[in-house]
């Protein structure tokens, strides 16, 4: 209380002396900026989790009500394709983690390579998904009211497929967004924007990508297996 002046300059001096280009003026240090970005990303991730939670709640409610429908519906889904896609996404999670590792250790070309591999794996995932979807449309399995698959005329089966399409559809949209962002990052990494000094976008996108993976880790058994 003795010196309650308004002129304290605890951080400004140091900030102005060492001012890397990525550091925004309203942050005191790179560290503060990185921590803030990361906390922001984690908050964003829980909004994603809660967004998907709505679908998981719908899934659980209908599964409790009509368990047999889920068993019947799952027989129409190909567990091999689902399993393949699980492995593909897990692999892309690994490559994105390795990309961050490369950024942290200043291996810029490795960083670019891992980012490109991640995008390619995501592409494989989407291609498999495309074949799964078209096969179902071919059979007349559409979400909701348009459902016209004669071999599954049991009541409530269309609800299962509505849930399937909405869950995998929203997940697929997230994969597409991830592919876009990862490609952009690969381009920036190619330009040499990232290194151990500054790799926040890579780290944050990595977090996002892992979450997309986690959602699929749950979708795979819930829809394809049980």
């Amino acid at each position, binding site marked *: 209380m003795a010196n309650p002046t308004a002129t304290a300059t605890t951080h400004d001096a140091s900030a102005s002396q060492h001012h890397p280009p990525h550091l925004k003026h309203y942050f005191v240090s*790179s560290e503060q900026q990185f921590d803030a970005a990361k906390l922001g990303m984690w908050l964003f*991730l829980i909004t994603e989790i809660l967004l998907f939670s709505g679908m998981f709640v719908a899934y659980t*409610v209908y599964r*409790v009500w009509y368990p047999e429908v889920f068993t019947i519906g799952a027989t129409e889904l190909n567990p091999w394709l689902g399993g393949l896609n699980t492995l593909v996404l897990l692999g892309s999670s690994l490559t994105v983690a390795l990309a961050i590792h490369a950024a942290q250790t200043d291996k810029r070309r490795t960083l670019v390579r891992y980012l490109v591999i991640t995008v390619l794996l995501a592409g494989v995932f989407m291609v498999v998904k495309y074949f799964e979807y078209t096969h179902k449309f071919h059979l007349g399995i559409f979400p909701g009211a348009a459902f016209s698959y004669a071999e599954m005329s049991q009541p409530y089966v269309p609800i299962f497929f509505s849930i399937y399409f909405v869950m995998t559809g929203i997940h697929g949209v997230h994969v597409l967004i991830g592919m876009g962002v990862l490609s952009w990052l690969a381009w920036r990494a190619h330009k040499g924007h990232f290194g151990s000094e500054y790799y926040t976008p890579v780290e944050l996108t990595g977090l996002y990508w892992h979450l997309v993976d986690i959602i699929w880790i749950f979708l795979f058994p819930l829809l394809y297996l049980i």
Partner: protein
Amino acid sequence: MKAQHGHHVTPKKTLIKVFAVLVVLTIVTALTAQLDLGGLDVPLALAIASTKAGLVVLFFMALKYDNKVNALVFALGVTFVAIFLTFTLFDTAFRGDLGNVGSETISDIERRESMLRDRAAGVPESTEGTASDPSIEGGEE
């Protein structure tokens, strides 16, 4: 291992090991799903999926080495998903739990009681007639 800013750098070896475990768990869940474990099918699949998700969160997302506040945020998110699910199930899993309550209303009961009282005062032997009245038994399923 620490990077320039004191960020934790997860060693490559750890990442690859975690990936290997994830692949193994995927195969395990695919195989166990083919067996008929009765009521254990769903819990087992969920347990394996949760383990896999936990590994991704702890190592790939490096939450194990991260700021505690980020872990808190993540825990908060998961907690509220659990709340959402549980409280919705309180309804949907018990929907219609009032269906077995009698259809008799309070005024029905009062009317019956006053009738019984009148009869007790007047003609005592005719009470059995009311007992067989279906509207008094209730029991609408």
